[in-house]
């Protein structure tokens, strides 16, 4: 057993106390339906190729408050328009579908990585494309948005990197899990472009396992929740998952144990996160975590760490850039429910049933090594 595996098991033993789980009134279901955009225009052509939209839907509600929907979109990874037209095309499609939600969503949460290399041109493009969506929009940053100018342009466009608001009986929190990377650039005298380049490679070894919430933000989170009834629902949006899936790809935050400790008193906590570009589901203590799709491209499942509670996504077809990607609609019902529905552009059934169709079926035989070339100066 590796040191990493040993630590993971130890933490599990400490944190997964018997009988501790998110309130059962919050439940996860998986349903599929054809999105209405399939019935019209461009999407009808897509349907004839067997493409169907992908949407993640979560129903969530508290007590007597009115039911509502909200939408999740993230990881559009936009380059300047002329460099990658497919990414633009998919962002436009998602924006149109979100705007067409019926009944309409109360708000859109954008979960980070709107840009690929933090270029102001890319951030402006994302902002422009999302003007299609006229409902309330809230944003949290991803690492791809940040490390060219350390978030300056992102903040100018989208505001604070963390925030909280209450909506129909639910406290929503936006967390910043990306801006507190340990400084790997100053000592090496890197240019902003070099700093960004290292950060933008998922399997890079120079930036390391950088994701984290940070002591200051943990204190902020503690105080942001202090006046909230511990039995009422809390939904936390973060770019990275608030638990440990696979640190080499930053499918985690390094201080997730502290996050879990802060959230422990609250019994209805749902963390919805991006970054992983794939459906993931886990429960730790009273917190559930749900991983969302990207519009840009799907990541493979990591070689280890995929939670046993996750039903993996189907294996995507790399020849179809609408496959394995999409966005999410979330519905809050009157029954304290969290219902998740994943829709993949290109699929009627987004989650794998048979092993041969699963994105993880080959992983038992897969050994992977970290790359080497980025650690050799000047790379």
């Amino acid at each position: 057993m590796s040191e990493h595996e040993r630590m993971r098991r130890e933490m599990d033993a400490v944190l997964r106390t018997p009988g501790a789980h998110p309130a059962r009134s919050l439940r996860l279901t998986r349903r599929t339906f054809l999105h209405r955009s399939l019935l019209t225009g461009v999407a009808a052509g897509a349907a004839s190729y067997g493409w169907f939209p992908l949407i993640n839907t979560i129903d969530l509600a508290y007590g007597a408050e009115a039911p509502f929907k909200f939408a999740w979109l993230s990881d559009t990874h936009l380059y300047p328009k002329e460099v990658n037209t497919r990414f633009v095309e998919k962002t436009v499609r998602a924006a149109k579908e979100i705007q067409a939600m019926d009944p309409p969503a109360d708000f859109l949460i954008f979960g980070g990585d709107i840009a690929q290399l933090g270029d102001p041109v890319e951030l402006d493009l994302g902002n422009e494309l999302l003007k299609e969506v006229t409902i309330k929009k809230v944003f949290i940053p991803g690492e791809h948005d940040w490390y060219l100018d350390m978030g300056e342009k992102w903040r100018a466009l989208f505001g604070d990197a963390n925030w909280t608001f209450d909506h129909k009986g639910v406290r929503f929190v936006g967390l910043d899990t990306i801006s507190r990377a340990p400084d790997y650039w100053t000592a090496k005298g890197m240019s902003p472009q070099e700093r960004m380049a290292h950060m933008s490679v998922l399997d890079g070894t120079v930036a390391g396992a950088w994701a984290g919430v940070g002591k200051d933000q943990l204190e902020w989170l503690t105080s942001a929740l202090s006046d909230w009834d511990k039995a009422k629902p809390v939904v936390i949006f973060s770019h990275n998952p608030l638990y440990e899936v696979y640190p080499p790809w930053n499918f985690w935050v390094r201080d997730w144990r502290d996050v879990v400790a802060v959230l422990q008193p609250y019994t209805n906590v749902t963390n919805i996160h991006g970054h992983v570009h794939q459906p993931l589901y886990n429960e730790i203590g009273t917190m559930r975590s749900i991983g969302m799709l990207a519009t840009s491209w799907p990541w493979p499942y990591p070689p280890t760490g995929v939670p046993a509670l996750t039903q993996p996504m189907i294996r995507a077809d790399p020849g179809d850039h609408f496959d394995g990607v999409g966005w999410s609609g979330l519905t809050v019902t009157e029954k304290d429910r969290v219902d998740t529905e994943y829709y993949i552009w290109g699929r009627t059934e987004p989650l794998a049933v048979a092993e041969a169709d699963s994105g993880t079926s080959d992983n038992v035989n897969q050994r992977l090594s970290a790359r080497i070339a980025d650690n050799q100066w000047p790379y």
Partner: protein
Amino acid sequence: MDIRRSTLHQLLAGVAFLGLLAIVGPAPAGEVDLSDAVQLAHKKPHTAEQLKAFNDVFMEEVRKGDLLFHGDGATQEAMGVKLSATGMACAMCHPMSADIHPYEFPKFQEQIGKFATLRDMINWCIEKPNQGEKIESDSEAMKALEAYMYWSTKGSALDPGRH
């Protein structure tokens, strides 16, 4: 016996190494001249330096393959290839070579619609998702990419033909 044999091996290795020096002259410090490798192949016991030199050749290919795989512009230019026209690099869908499963080739490859080698699939990915320019099947760039993929999935069991 073992001790005697090993002493003999060392002696022969020393003689072979001196012989090599006599033929090709001293290699630069830290390097082993491999120009006579073909003539000498397996005919003399290998020295640690030779084995290291063989490995260095391999790891240099891995390094170049790693850079190509991660979209490094300078390496592509130096090797005369254009692997992508969209900003996408191999590593964006395959971090650490995940989900390539090079050890499962050759096999029937659905996307190509026929029995395919790893090199066929590399070119398919360059042309389709990356919208780049396919490379010669036995080119330096192809060998470097292949070296990187096999190296980074070292330890996975061979499973040719698996879907």
